[in-house]
Structures are given as structure tokens and as C-alpha cells.
């Protein structure tokens, strides 16, 4: 079954027949994790770096922000007995509009927020395809554990 992760959304599964997919990441970030030991994985598609922007929205939907969504992803993975040090961690998205000056570059801010949180928790990123001006789609195939990053109009990368 195809589990579609929308904008500000997250899906986790340990069913090998499932593929988790998130379409069209612009400046948003898709964080895909997979633990082969328990065959569980998930994708988070967050839109903004910090929940302090709107704490009420963050309570209603923690997947909107990096600092509430990323811990939520690892918490749910832990419920599947997945361990952070065993996980494949793949990051995609964080694109920017041409000549977007730093202050409006939300893609970059999303990426920085992610590294701050993962570094603090000693989680290593295995593959990162971030930035540029492209749309990306990320798929996690729970049968193989492969993460597939497809740039719209470009080639696929299988990690």
C-alpha cells in the first residue's frame, strides 16, 4: 500500500508491503528514517523550522515544525523498537527560489534546524540531497529499505 505523507505530516510503518511517499518538497524538508533491524521506517514532511512561531499550531500539528516533528518521528520509531543509531537517515528538500536572500530562505533555515536537533541527539545523516531550486519526491520502500529521491524532471537516486 502507498502511504502518502502530506505537507506537515508524518507516516511510520513496519509493514513490508507498504511504500511511504511524500511528493513535491519545495522549501519543506522530508526526513526519511529506516531501521533494518526491526524493518520499521517513516517519513516526516515538515514545513517550517521552529514551533515558537505558533505554539498552538504546533500542539495541533507537531509535524509542521522541525523542532516538534523530528522528536515525534523518533518517538514513534521507538515505539516500533527502532534505535536511532541503527537507522538509515536521509534528508531531502530545503530548496529555494532563485536569488532568495538569506532572511527569506526558509529551505536553508529548515536544513539548519534539522542539523541542530540531530547533532544534539548524536544522530548521523547518511545521505542529504538539499537545496537548489528543484522539487523532490521521497519514497521509502519498506520491502527493501531503499529510500528513493526523485527530482522533478531529473533522475532518481536510490539510497
Amino acid at each position, binding site marked *: 500500500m502507498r502511504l502518502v505523507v502530506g*505537507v506537515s505530516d508524518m507516516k511510520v510503518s513496519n509493514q513490508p508491503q507498504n511504500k511511504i511517499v511524500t*511528493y513535491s518538497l*519545495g522549501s519543506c524538508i522530508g526526513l526519511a528514517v529506516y531501521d533494518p533491524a526491526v524493518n520499521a521506517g517513516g517519513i516526516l514532511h515538515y*514545513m517550517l523550522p521552529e514551533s515558537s512561531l505558533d505554539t498552538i499550531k504546533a500542539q495541533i500539528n507537531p509535524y509542521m515544525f522541525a523542532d516538534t516533528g523530528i522528536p515525534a518521528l523518533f518517538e514513534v520509531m521507538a515505539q516500533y523498537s527502532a534505535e536511532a543509531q541503527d537507522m538509515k537517515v536521509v534528508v531531502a528538500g530545503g530548496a529555494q527560489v*532563485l536569488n532568495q536572500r538569506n532572511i527569506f530562505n526558509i*529551505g536553508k533555515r529548515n536544513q539548519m534546524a534539522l542539523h541542530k536537533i540531530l547533532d544534539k541527539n548524536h544522530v548521523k545523516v547518511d545521505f542529504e540531497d538539499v537545496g537548489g531550486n*528543484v*522539487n523532490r519526491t521521497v519514497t521509502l520502500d519498506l520491502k527493501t529499505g531503499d529510500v528513493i529521491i526523485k527530482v522533478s*524532471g*531529473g533522475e532518481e537516486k536510490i539510497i
Partner: protein
Amino acid sequence: MSTINELIQKIDELKPISRVTSQIITLAEDSKSSMSDFANVIQYDSATTANLLRTCNSAAMGLPRKVESVRDAITLMGLEQVVDLVLIKNSTDNLKTEQPGYGLDEGALWRQSVASAMLSKELCQKHEVANQHLVFTAALLKDIGKVVLSRFVADEFKKINELVENDGLSFREAEKQIIGVDHAELGAMVAKKWNFSSKMISIIKNHHLTDESQKNDLETAIVYAADTICMMMGIGGGADGLAYHFFNEVFSLLEISEKDLQIIMASFAQNLEKVENLFTAV
């Protein structure tokens, strides 16, 4: 046949807009039009009325009860929303199909168009723009040129993309350089053929600010900003990606700070479900 002649022929192949849609858009273009002007046109056209009722009564709309008449729809949703629905229903047939040149699956261009029209409307309200229906319609139809150009972009995609990747051109600039015409320019040609007002034609032509002086025009700036924000959010994102120029000044004109931009994105995310429901309903 030359590319330009082929493109003109492709414009003729678009599904034409009906006479009543044209009347509704003419009302939308005129800030002096009253709400009852719209109501009159809608309720005296049986096809528009039937479509509106079908849309309203679709389960995806989630209305609390059955809508039996135009008057009923207006009571339930407000005339403003009824007009928006009619504009969407009557003018977006061409946008629903897949556009392979732009890597857009069926419905993707439609979703992007409706989302940026909705966001444009929100920005209009903030800035108390007199003619919100005009801006809404322009945002809705700004990418009609992509429907015409898609096949040509598909043929030349590699060359276009090389210019974007290697020379830092925007996707629109690269289209212009390789094909000789870009989707915004073509959109304006369609708008002209459909007898839209010069203001509407200008907004469509400049929705990527081809003529940079247009960034000081409030209505054009709003459509540009809404399009850019939808692009960042990845709504209906395609092979052209985010490869369009960013103009800080537009966001200054619209008094949108970096924090405001994030607030707009967080708040607009709620509307994505509404866009999805509308797609099912219309």
C-alpha cells in the same frame, strides 16, 4: 510550420470559456460590479447553476444540508464564496489535465492555480484591494500558458534545464531563450484572445515579473507573492521547480517580513485540505 504558428494553433485548441463565464469574468474585472450583478448572471444561466449545485452538494464540500438553489447556496456560503466557486468551476477545465513538459500529473496545475488564487485573495484582504475578484481570477489563470507550452517544453526540456542549472536563468527566461516564447507571455496571449481586460492580461504576463517595473503594482505583486509562496510550499510543484527569481522588494511592498512569511505558510497549510476537497467537488 513555425513554432510560433504551432503555438497559436495550440491556443485555438484550448477549451474555450463559455459566454456566461466571460460575463462573470468581465464583472470580476470591474471593481464597481456589485454582488447582485454576479448573482443575476449566475442564477440566469442554467448550466452554471446546475454545476454550482452539483459542486455544493458533493460530499467533499461537507455542507450541512442539501443546496437547492443559487439563493440557497448564497445563504449557506455567502455570495463571495459562491462567486469564487463559479469562477473556479467555469474557468479551470484546461488546467486539470497532466502537463508532462512541466512534470505535472493530472490535477497538479489545477491545485497550484486554485491554491495561489486563494492565497492571493487573503493577501488582497490584508491590503484592502478594491478588486479582489480580478486578482483571484488572474491568479487562477496565470499559468494557462503552461497548458499551451507543455509539449514544447517536453521537447526542449534538456536545453531549458541546462540554462537554468548552468547559467542561473529562471525557467521562464530559459523557455523564452530556447522556444522563443515563455508561458507567461503565452498566458497573456490566451487572455487577450479571451477578451480579458488589459489589467488582467498584464498580471498574467507579469506573474513572474518579466517587466520588473510591475513589482510596484499592488495586484501584480500579490499574484507574484502568492505564486512564490505556493512554490515554496511545494503545492503542485513541477519540473520547473523553484527556478524563478525572488524579489525582496515585493515582500517589502506587501509588508511581509520573514516571520510574516512563515506565519502565512503555517496558516495557509490548513487550506490545502480545502483545495483537495474542491478538486473532488468540482
